[in-house]
């Protein structure tokens, strides 16, 4: 493992924290995992991310980087070890960035809305939103993976990280609502992908167990 001055401010259970952890693993970079106790924001956190006061925050050589997908891109650009996380062709890069943005700006709000809906109607709409997103990503997987295991091809890439970090949350939504979002027959590509993703060396041990996450979310 390469030595470097990298710290990662995190809390348990956050899908966003999983993203830079996968990226750092892919690049074989050692880092100090600074867990923020639940419900507290340390001075370091507030100093490093005064705008949002949120985790994850990566601190590299004393300089803070915020926002999980921005951190992932930073890791890809700052460290030359390991595979590339984003593709090299500008058009392919625009495709992965598009889906990263879709996952965070559109799909994630549906995912969250299924957990704390104000009405049954709202819950139904939210679940539909999550489902639609998964269908779109299923289709995108076929085009982007070009027959390989991951969106990133042979290795875990940007979309894999962006989407995969939410897998535990997806399973929580499935459990709480008695629905199947990733299904062997309806979404065969993503179903197979999720197994490969979760067992990839850079990822395994990072995706929390569904029940544990459920417990954390209840707090």
């Amino acid at each position, binding site marked *: 493992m390469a030595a470097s001055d990298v710290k990662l401010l995190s809390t348990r259970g956050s899908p966003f924290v999983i993203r830079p952890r996968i990226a750092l693993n892919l690049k074989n970079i050692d880092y100090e995992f600074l867990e923020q106790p639940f419900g507290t924001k340390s001075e370091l956190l507030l100093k490093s991310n005064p*705008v949002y006061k949120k985790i994850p925050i990566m601190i590299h050589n004393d300089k803070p*980087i915020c*926002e999980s997908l921005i951190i992932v891109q930073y890791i890809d650009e*700052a460290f030359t070890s390991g595979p590339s996380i984003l593709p090299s062709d500008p058009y392919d890069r625009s495709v992965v960035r598009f889906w990263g943005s*879709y996952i965070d700006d559109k799909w994630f709000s549906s995912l969250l809305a299924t957990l704390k809906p104000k009405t049954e109607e709202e819950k139904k709409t939210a679940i539909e939103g999550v489902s639609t997103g998964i269908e779109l990503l299923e289709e995108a997987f076929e085009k982007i993976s070009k027959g390989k295991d991951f969106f990133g091809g042979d290795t875990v890439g940007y979309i894999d990280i962006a989407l995969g970090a939410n897998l535990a949350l997806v399973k929580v939504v499935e459990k709480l609502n008695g629905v199947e979002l990733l299904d062997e027959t309806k979404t065969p590509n993503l179903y197979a992908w999720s197994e490969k993703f979760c067992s990839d060396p850079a990822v395994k041990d990072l995706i929390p167990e569904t029940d544990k996450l459920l417990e954390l979310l209840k707090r």
Partner: protein
Amino acid sequence: MRPHQSFERLAINIGDERLPKNNKRDRLMATDEVILIGFRGGPFSLIVEWALKLKGVEYEYLDEDLFNNNKSPMLLQYNPVHKKVPVLVHNGKPVAESLVIVEYIDETWKQYPLLPDDPYDRAVARFWAKYAEDKCKTAAFSVFATVGEAQENATKEAREILKTFEKGLRGKFFGGETIGFVDVVAGWIAYWIGVIEEITGINIVDKETMPLLSEWFQNFLDVEIVKERLPPRDKLLEKNKIFREQLVAAST
């Protein structure tokens, strides 16, 4: 270096076909075909126009009839997920989402780089660009689309958000002494805050509370390439006054 002239035309009804290739002028053009599908009544296509103009890239501009919510088949074909503008079509391949488009433009045409070279500086630029997109955009349009107490709250929030945004300035511009990624992505604010203020009668940004941001508004709008693409203010005011009335009526 002077920017190339851009070819503009209004798309009235182009159906499912690509742009005609039987035109002599088109055959003589460079082999790169760049089309921007946008909407002059709104701010976000400007982001892409400024990026393209800075790099001297020739493009064909197609305006969508969005005041009448009339989306062209071409838009729906090239951005089926969001069905929104702007969309850049480069040699038949579409790119959607303004931040994604600007990074694509920056990586495809290397002259006048928008993002800095250093990975840390790039991360900072991406942070503020995202802040402008996630927070400033919502803030400005919340003030535009609301009335009464909701508008008061939206205004208070917008002022806080823009005050925070001001912290991203690295000198004259967000890009330092010359315009860069964040300026291009957020520059619409410099023009549109004034439009929103005039339509709503509300003051959002003033020189006392946000001196640096106010100065940036001026500096940005003074840039030749920026000025050239700005749609006429009176037209914007006229159309958006009506649009706001519709929005407010729909929500009450």
